[in-house]
């Protein structure tokens, strides 16, 4: 009989003992209200994990996703924090009642953005922490040390908050889930209900898949 399965089981056991937070299964997902994303993630944004949503094209729907997330979490009375690196959130674009559970941090620099996210992820009172770095130049984003992202991932692990990072390009190193919005929306659809527009978003899974959580769980 081959010894490979036994060695593999021993290795998995060793790794789960050494890094218990990696072996822990993510908590239940937080629904975003966008069917394509919830299906891709197997139920919503995973708690205790980072999910990167890349807006690869202009008007590809990143803000629509955030608006639907606000409405979805509002129904569940879950708190949401938004760390807004480029100060781009427009409160008037969201129904007033869907803002009552939001804490908006209007950051000024990328360093302050990461520091604020670090504080919020450790807080324990938020279901979702959204870190929006769109609007920051890609060059400045690439210059930011990767250690900041790793630190954020470590802070998220073991916590109850799902962390959504909205970026203009593929940025976060070793992120468990990376989804990309590539198609620009059309102005001709502007008369449609926001819910219908959200349902039309095309989401590509670049990193992570349905079996990823099981794989992570060893």
């Amino acid at each position, binding site marked *: 009989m081959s010894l490979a399965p036994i060695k593999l089981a021993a290795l998995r056991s060793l790794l789960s003992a050494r890094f218990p937070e990696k072996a822990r299964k993510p908590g239940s997902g937080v629904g975003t209200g966008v069917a394509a994303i919830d299906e891709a993630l197997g139920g919503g944004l995973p708690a205790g994990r980072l999910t990167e949503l890349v807006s690869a094209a202009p*008007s590809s729907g990143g803000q629509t996703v955030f608006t639907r997330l606000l409405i979805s979490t509002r129904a569940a009375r879950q708190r949401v924090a938004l760390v807004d690196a480029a100060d781009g959130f*427009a409160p008037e674009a969201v129904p007033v009642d869907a803002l009552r559970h939001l804490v908006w941090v*209007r950051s000024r620099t990328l360093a302050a953005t990461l520091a604020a996210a670090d504080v919020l992820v450790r*807080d324990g009172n938020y279901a979702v922490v959204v870190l929006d770095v769109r609007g920051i130049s890609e060059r400045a984003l690439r210059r930011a040390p990767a250690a900041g992202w790793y630190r954020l991932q470590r*802070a998220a692990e*073991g916590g109850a908050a799902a962390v959504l990072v909205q970026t203009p390009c593929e940025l976060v190193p070793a992120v468990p889930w990376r989804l990309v919005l590539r198609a620009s*929306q059309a*102005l001709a659809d502007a008369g449609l209900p926001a819910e219908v527009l959200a349902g039309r978003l095309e989401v590509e899974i670049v990193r992570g898949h349905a079996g990823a959580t099981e794989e992570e769980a060893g």
Partner: protein
Amino acid sequence: MKVERLAPKALATPSELQTEGRTGGSPPHLLFAVLQVENFALHALIRSDPALAARPVAVIAGEGRKAEVTEVSPEAAGVMPGLAVTLAMARCPGIILRTRDPAAEVEAHRLLLAAAFTLSPRVEFTGVGCCTVDLQGVDPVRTEAQMRRSLAELARAGLAARIGAGETPLLAAYAARKAEPVLIVTDAREFLRPLPLAFAAPLPGHADILRNWGLKTLGDLTALSKAEVGLRLGAEGVSLWERAAGESARVLRLVEPVKTFVAEWIYEPPVESIEPLFFRLRRFAERLALELRGAGFAAEKLGLTLRLEDETDYRREFCLPEPGVDVDLWLRVLHAHLETVRTAARVAGVRLGATPTRPAQKQDGLFDTGLRDPAAFWENLARLAALVGDDRVGTPLPADTHEPDAFTLERPPETVPAPASQPVHPPRGHALRRFRPPWPARVLCVDERPVGLESESAGGTVRTARGPWRGCGNWWKPGGWAVEIWQVELAEGGIYQLARTAEGWRVEGMLD
């Protein structure tokens, strides 16, 4: 746009509002703190061995005739660092001589870091017996009280530490050396003036030169011109001057907060009785409780493993009555069990682990706050306000006007209220993401409709345009506004919102 200032919630008790241990009378501006343990190797040894408590002890280094004392306890009268071992034994016949114990020092360092993490999650392990904490954004009154509590806990755990705080890591380090046990520097110049030059660590050659110049204190040196000092002593002289002024700033090399709450010890030789086992468990419990508290967790279970001499393990898990970090409760649970345990072989090692959980602070019903940890929520809001500005954090509330981008930032509610009923007309269209400030733009119009756009970051031929939507307000008083809004889709992709005002065209944001 009008914004409301978000006041940090005052959580300090009157007793915490003491001013003892501060230089100057103004409220402290905390940026960095340094936790320091003098004679760290000695303290680590003593706290790991109960037989050394209140005895004359010295830590020695070197071998044979070159062996000398490096650290010494106050009980060893007449012995000082640098003394040869033979001389130390002659001066203090009962002195206990030990070499450094790396395992004990690792355990003591973890304890020191755990105390530092109760102040802020941004902590640097600076060196032996020293760590630096980035306090940017913390509530100064609460943090000062927490500093004293952490020092008291460290003292109970056998580590006599001191804390200094100031505007730079260097200033905080100087303050830690003078602290008794907490010193917060609010007036750097006044604090540095009387300190001896040795604090700035001049090169030996420079120390002699400065002595010949008649300079004795940091104040004496900084009274001279920095440029003149640089001319005479070179680049190192400039650096020395900056250190004397407490100006040297640097980026902290942060360490990760612990994620697993485990402590382990190997006995050499193995032990047979409960006392040494229980002493070690107390030390572990003190450290784990601090680590849990620093990470905002409580323990729901304790796991005890005794590694026996015959290479077998004795394991037991204890479910605690309620999640917490009560060291005495943990020790009562462990003691009650260990008294009944009989093992087949001596205990060669012990391991204690705590299973973390969030503290159960949520109260349902009449006093429902809707917050799992209200203290952390308000404290973190205050920290965020200090990071980005206290008018830039809060819950947005659109103003009751049609004026674009008009809103206020409110204090977040303690309880998230039940959602209102579904609106009769659900929201339509794409969501706007604003560019603040808006981009100035040139718009080419045909028949009063935009057909081309030029701006700093977006431009091209307009494929489709919707509009205009015109609005105005406050026209009867100063500060009136009038705007014409267009939505345009560019041929290259991207939908933008344009605004035409008396000042011209601007790109207000992207419909995304």
